[in-house]
């Protein structure tokens, strides 16, 4: 009788808007964008759009994709989401080599550094692991089953990362928690040894990233949250090293700062070979750059890069080694009230070299469409069209804000309201 909110949420048939996602191959061989159920890939080496090779039919995913990523060595790519299907692709032939059926909707994915295991998190807080040993893609796509690896008790997992040394798997949830678990030798038996919990956020954790440099190859974890902070952690001990408040900085730029969820961090991207972290923030047109000082273990706002003349509030960020480029996408699917079911806009900021921000010769700047690698051909593939209507983005930003709040912020009901909700529950009425 007493059902919980997550269960209720799962039964909810309302179509939810889903943010557009972007991911770049680690050495920039290709770039992928997911909008709704659509997975779009552009081959940057061959300068051409990619056609996915998937036995399971024309559309690989039947519902919104919620997570995409390349493996660290660039061989594999994973996509998953609301259709409860995890697809593992060869990132060269773009053949789907393995399909895994999940019991629940998938909210996050990760690939072990050696490319032998794929992990995915479902909306009930369980992280699953798939063993890829023996799959070489020589046969047609195989089906695999996943084994449970660990669980956050009935929470939604919002981020999943392997530590740079591969020793740990890090999982973040909407209950403000980040769990650091030793990734075991036999993952199919489960990951039972918790190294630490990183506790300090006071709202849902929305994203994770590792800042890695030559001096600190083990890296430091950064996390973004609905509490308008980005935090720096020592994952071995779980200690909070520094907290960076972004709300104040954003507030200077935009002045309508009264509504809630105003400065939620939606994505973080550590820019390879630098100590910079780019942050996408729910109300910020452009990105905020944070600078991480790994010797003093501090994190501070370095700069805001705004995108002039365009209403681009990125929903997802990506970067790759040695290119000095930061990729971003903004967009949604299932946007209510518009005839286009989904929109997306890709932007690239260039000028991040192997250095800290101070020593950059030129300020990082957004590129004009024609100057983007792949130019209009790339935009046509990833955006679906070269030009996108401005008005749609404003609506999209609003819809996304609402969707994120609904999903991740716990509703605070007054006592009377709770009693009222209990009395008027549908499941109870139907039983009478």
């Amino acid at each position: 009788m007493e059902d919980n909110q997550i269960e209720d949420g799962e039964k909810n048939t309302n179509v939810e808007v889903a943010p557009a996602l972007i991911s770049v191959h680690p050495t920039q061989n290709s770039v992928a964008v997911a909008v709704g159920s659509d997975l779009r890939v552009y081959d940057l080496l061959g300068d051409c759009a990619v056609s996915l090779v998937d036995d399971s039919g024309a559309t690989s995913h039947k519902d919104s994709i919620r997570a995409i990523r390349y493996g660290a060595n660039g061989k594999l790519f994973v996509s998953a989401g609301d259709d409860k299907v995890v697809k593992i692709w060869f990132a060269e032939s773009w053949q789907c080599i393995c399909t895994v059926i999940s019991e629940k909707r998938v909210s996050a994915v990760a690939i072990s550094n050696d490319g032998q295991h794929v992990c995915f998190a479902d909306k009930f807080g369980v992280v699953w692991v798939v063993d890829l040993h023996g799959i070489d893609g020589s046969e047609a796509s195989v089906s695999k089953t996943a084994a449970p690896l660990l669980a956050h008790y009935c929470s939604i997992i919002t981020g999943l990362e392997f530590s740079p040394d591969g020793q740990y798997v890090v999982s973040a949830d909407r209950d403000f928690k980040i769990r650091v678990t030793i990734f075991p030798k036999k993952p199919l038996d489960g990951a039972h040894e918790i190294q630490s919990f990183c506790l300090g956020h006071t709202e849902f954790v929305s994203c994770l990233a590792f800042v890695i440099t030559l001096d600190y190859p083990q890296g430091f974890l950064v996390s973004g949250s609905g509490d308008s902070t980005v935090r720096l952690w020592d994952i071995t001990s779980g200690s909070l090293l520094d907290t960076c408040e972004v709300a104040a900085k954003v507030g200077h730029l935009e002045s309508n700062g009264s509504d809630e969820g105003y400065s939620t961090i939606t994505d973080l991207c550590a820019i390879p070979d630098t100590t910079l972290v780019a942050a996408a923030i729910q109300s910020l047109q452009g990105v905020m750059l944070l600078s991480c000082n790994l010797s003093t273990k501090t994190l501070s706002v370095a700069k805001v890069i705004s995108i002039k003349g365009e209403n681009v509030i990125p929903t997802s960020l990506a970067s790759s080694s040695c290119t000095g480029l930061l990729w971003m996408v903004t967009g949604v699917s299932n946007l209510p009230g518009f005839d286009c079911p989904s929109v997306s806009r890709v932007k690239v900021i260039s000028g991040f070299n192997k250095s800290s921000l101070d020593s950059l010769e030129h300020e990082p700047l957004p590129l004009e469409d024609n100057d983007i690698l792949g130019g209009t051909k790339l935009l046509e593939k990833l955006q679906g069209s070269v030009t996108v209507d401005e008005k749609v983005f404003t609506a999209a930003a609003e819809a996304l804000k609402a969707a994120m709040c609904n999903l991740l912020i716990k509703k605070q009901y007054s006592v009377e309201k709770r009693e009222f909700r209990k009395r008027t529950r549908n499941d109870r009425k139907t039983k009478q």
Partner: protein
Amino acid sequence: MLEKESNPTHSKSTGLPRKRFYRARAHSNPLSDSHFPVPVSPSHVDFSLHYPQFFPSSSEVSCSKKIQFADIGCGFGGLLISLSTLFPETLMIGMELRDKVTEYVKERILALRGSNPGQYQNVSVVRTNSMKYIPNYFEKGQLTKMFFLFPDPHFKEKNHRRRVISLHLLDEYAYVLGVGGIIYTITDVEELGDWMKSCLESHPMFEALKKEELEADPVVKLLCSATEEGQKVARNGGQTFQAVFRRIVPTS
């Protein structure tokens, strides 16, 4: 402070709170999001509120004592009360989901402190969902004993994930228990007893206590006699099923 005479919810003769004023729903759903405060991390827990005599707020020297025993789903608190005098120097806490029941335990401890000066200073209770917030209360390896006495059985297979012992939740219990720490479970539901035992047996960080060890442990005797639920089962002559395991270093 305690107002023995004027408090109608307390018994006039003993000064203890009367259970009938603290009756609550039989079961709470541990999955639903609730609305009690949760400490951001263990360092945010204010021990001076729980154990004022051990943490006098006026003194500058901070007490380094840490909670060592946790009674999960402590109900009306019978076990804690027994343990309190058996281990007077050990800090212990009950975790209980039901609001009214937690209030009852709070009052019970205050009343006992009032009528037994110097005693029961080492025991306290918090209202929380232990299945979600254990790491918010305890640091790694901090606990030496954890108790799960007569937990709700959640019979239906679909509801097994509501059980307070599961392979996944044991990961968290193994995290807050120090090596050598002991987890005590008991139930009068045979199927749940089998379930708890098999979860513990399949977890790489726990091993069963030997028969001699069980006999030598004074706490084991309390499992079926100290709590309200245990006494009820005993009165009805019911059978009980216990599983007592030690936290070990996993062999990898």
